[in-house]
């Protein structure tokens, strides 16, 4: 329980810190200018700071001649936007790695472990962790770390099996 907490704490701290890391490429001033007279609408992006984010600095080259510039710029709307591409990258990579780990673990539990433990073909998919019962009954206590981990894992498998029975088979919860 404590390690999960530490992990999630670290994760939330990382995300908040990352969002404050500013990549200079991650700011932009976006000006949207609607159609004016016979000029079509246009969108301008430029990497400027917030105080320079207005039509005169961003709209280059100016499509209308001098006297019309003010009328044109009045219709344009300029917004300053920033994002954190580092946050996005790290988040997606964290998510994909968690997903990948879970998938690997699922494949291991369903296919690899029955082959390793019992030496015959894997069981039907209905009860992928059904051999947990036998393993639990057979395990003798030797207090080393590996056995502890295995014991915790077997207990967890039983719990999941019970949950699966009540949700999927008997439909008593969460139908």
């Amino acid at each position: 329980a404590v390690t999960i907490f530490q992990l999630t704490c670290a994760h939330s701290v990382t995300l908040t810190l990352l969002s404050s890391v500013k990549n200079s490429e991650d700011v932009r001033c976006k000006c949207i200018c609607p159609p004016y007279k016979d000029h079509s609408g246009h969108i301008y992006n430029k990497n400027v700071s917030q105080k320079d984010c207005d039509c005169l600095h961003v709209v280059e080259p100016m499509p209308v001649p001098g006297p019309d510039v003010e009328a044109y710029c009045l219709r344009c709307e300029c917004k300053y936007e920033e994002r954190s591409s580092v946050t996005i990258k790290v988040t997606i990579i964290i998510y994909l790695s968690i997903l990948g780990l879970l998938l690997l673990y699922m494949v291991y539990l369903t296919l690899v472990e029955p082959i390793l433990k019992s030496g015959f073909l894997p069981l039907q998919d209905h009860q992928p962790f059904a051999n947990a019962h036998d393993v639990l009954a057979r395990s003798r206590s030797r207090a080393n770390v590996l056995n502890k981990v295995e014991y915790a894992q077997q207990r967890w498998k039983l719990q999941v099996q019970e949950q699966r029975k009540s949700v999927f088979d008997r439909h008593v919860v969460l139908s």
Partner: protein
Amino acid sequence: MWLLVREGLQALAMEQKGYRRGSFQSGTSDEDMLEIAGASLEFSAADDDPPLDRELAGFSSYNGGGMNGTSTMMDFLEEPLPGVGTYEDFNTIDWVREKSRDRDRHREITNRSKESTWALLHSVSDAFSGWLLMLLIGLLAGSLAGLIDISAHWMTDLKEGVCLAGFWFNHEHCCWKSNTTFTDRDKCPEWKSWSQLILGHGEGAFAYILNYFMYVIWALMFSLLAVLLVKSFAPYACGSGIPEIKTILSGFIIRGYLGKWTLVIKTVTLVLAVSSGLSLGKEGPLVHVACCCGNILCHLFTKYRKNEAKRREVLSAAAAAGVSVAFGAPIGGVLFSLEEVSYYFPLKTLWRSFFAALVAAFTLRSINPFGNSRLVLFYVEFHMPWHLLELLPFILLGIFGGLWGAFFIRSNIAWCRRRKSTRLGRYPVLEVLVVTAITAVLAFPNEYTRMSTSELISELFNDCGILDSSKLCEYVNDFNSTKGDDLPDRAAGPGVYTAMWQLALALLMKVFITIFTFGMKVPSGLFIPSMAVGAIAGRLLGVAVEQLAFYHHDWAIFSGWCSPGADCITPGLYAMVGAAACLGGVTRMTVSLVVIMFELTGGLEYIVPLMAAAMTSKWVADAVGREGIYDAHIRLNGYPFLEAKEEFSHKTRAMDVMRPRKSDPALTVITQDTMSVEEVEAIVGSTTYSGYPVVVSRASQRLVGFVLRRDLIISIENARKKQDGIVSTSIVCFTDYCPPLPPSSPSVLKLRSILDLSPFTVTDETPMEIVVDIFRKLGLRQCLVTHNGKLLGIITKKDVLKHIAQMANQDPESILFN
């Protein structure tokens, strides 16, 4: 460590024979007793030996090494056994006991704080621990919501193409740097659709078919992964979660529902389910995720770990944080928790919930998932005025929302019931795949169903200005009148007509497909699909009214306030009101709905239309069907949830509901000092009641107190093993002063400490209205019935629920759990 122990208890309990409680008939008496006894040994060894030292397979012998030395009689009386005072799975907690335990603990800390500085610091930290816990919950919930948002955005766009500038960017962020054209804001060279990647070009029929195919394949893959992960790792992670959280907050225990594996799997599979294009949302599951965070973080603080009632206060606050990050609405989140989710909501919880919700919203904002400091994708910023006459279409939208809500609830419950009882329920993976396939195949051709539902709602809420170039904003523009951004009502161009019939088709599809989607074995929420249905209906009506006002501006109803050239009708507002109406019709939310909607829009201008629509939809929906969607699911699952809002209006009395009935055998009681251990064990073994009244003697039937089954079993087993001289013929004594026995008889087993000396009693003539009220207000599990001072019978919460169901002509046997 506590989690391990608790899981150990569960595993051992289950290992013997699977579930033993609730509607499940337990087996022989011996197995039951041994089961619990083994569990108690786990508990007593909690901090001393790792569980591995226990012999697991057989329970006939115990290993020693648990407690140190033999406990004397006085120790036994003073120290409560670990395990006494905890609850079994699928049981209701005893609110009164938990609350009084907390008060005792607080009193002890306060008294001790005067002794030393260390004790003073301890009391200060104890008071502060609640706030620290709220802070942690807010941080964790906010960061998880940020992870979910960013990942879901990316994966949704993955169905359509990839970004060559970095595969982790979604479509919008891929095109962030490059210059897009005014009319085609989606196209940029870095983003390649699948057909462009595979074929090299994006035009033509073959490219379209390839895109279609890839879309369906990705959707199927995502949903297959989601359902497999749920099935393999955490079956409790499916569904919305809100009905079960409501039941948990009312005092029910579902072990593992708010655990770490459920949290991890729910987060991961929620992203997959949302990205697969299914008609579901992520707000309900986010509440579940936040409550899991709350439950897990509770284990860091003793005050909340050991007390189930305090923990539920924390869970209420966590639920508020969940809604707050889902909508960017902290106040709405607190009100949602107050109105929909929580059962008891003390005022202290209000302030703390608000704090948690604020911290969560702030954390999410600093992660900035949408790139421009907004919290929700469909935040609107327009402030156009509306006219009083527009209340008529708003009320119409309210009626539509109410009718749709009632229709949806009825059909969804019918479908879920079918899933529960027929062969459909045996193929959950296949069901998810089929529904995803149908959704993907139907959704791709129509651009309004192809985009993610949040984007659709955002586009529908948007008010058309000169800067917009979407199909929905293709009005016939008159460029000679330069009025800045404030465009008048104009005639609809061809783009608007196309958009209208596409939206109508999208409405039909969403109305029907959501019925089959909600309740599947993937995390699924309801808020976004209902808001989408309402927003589409609202926008259709809004555009219709706008065109009516434009073409017939000389009619009496329009001429007064809508002159030609003015901007009177805002279809975006109609979409918002429609969304609120449909959401209210389904969930029957009132205050929280209006507050969430106006926090979404950022202004108070639209409170009156929102309230009008929400009220109308609630009244119409209540007229057609009594319950909201969450209460209907609670009833479908048979959870023992005593509805706090409904009045009990029948004239029955306590004696009509109590057990035993006239034809049943007499009430099973335990006498205070005349029964032997063997007899008590026989009674406990031969019945399945969760508690027994203790009387002075069988002849007088005068009440002494109430003892719980679990405590009795744990204490007797423990005494047999640990105490000297306790044999089957020892007398069990529940009083302080036991009767003197001849010296040759075995020593007395004193169980005074586990007896509850103040059970609640009512007389047999008490009207059931008052009894139901007592159960609700105090959170009782059982209540004893006396007549002329003598014990007559017992009423349990299950009996009350069955009675209410019977009175409402529903099936009383559907109340499953104990």
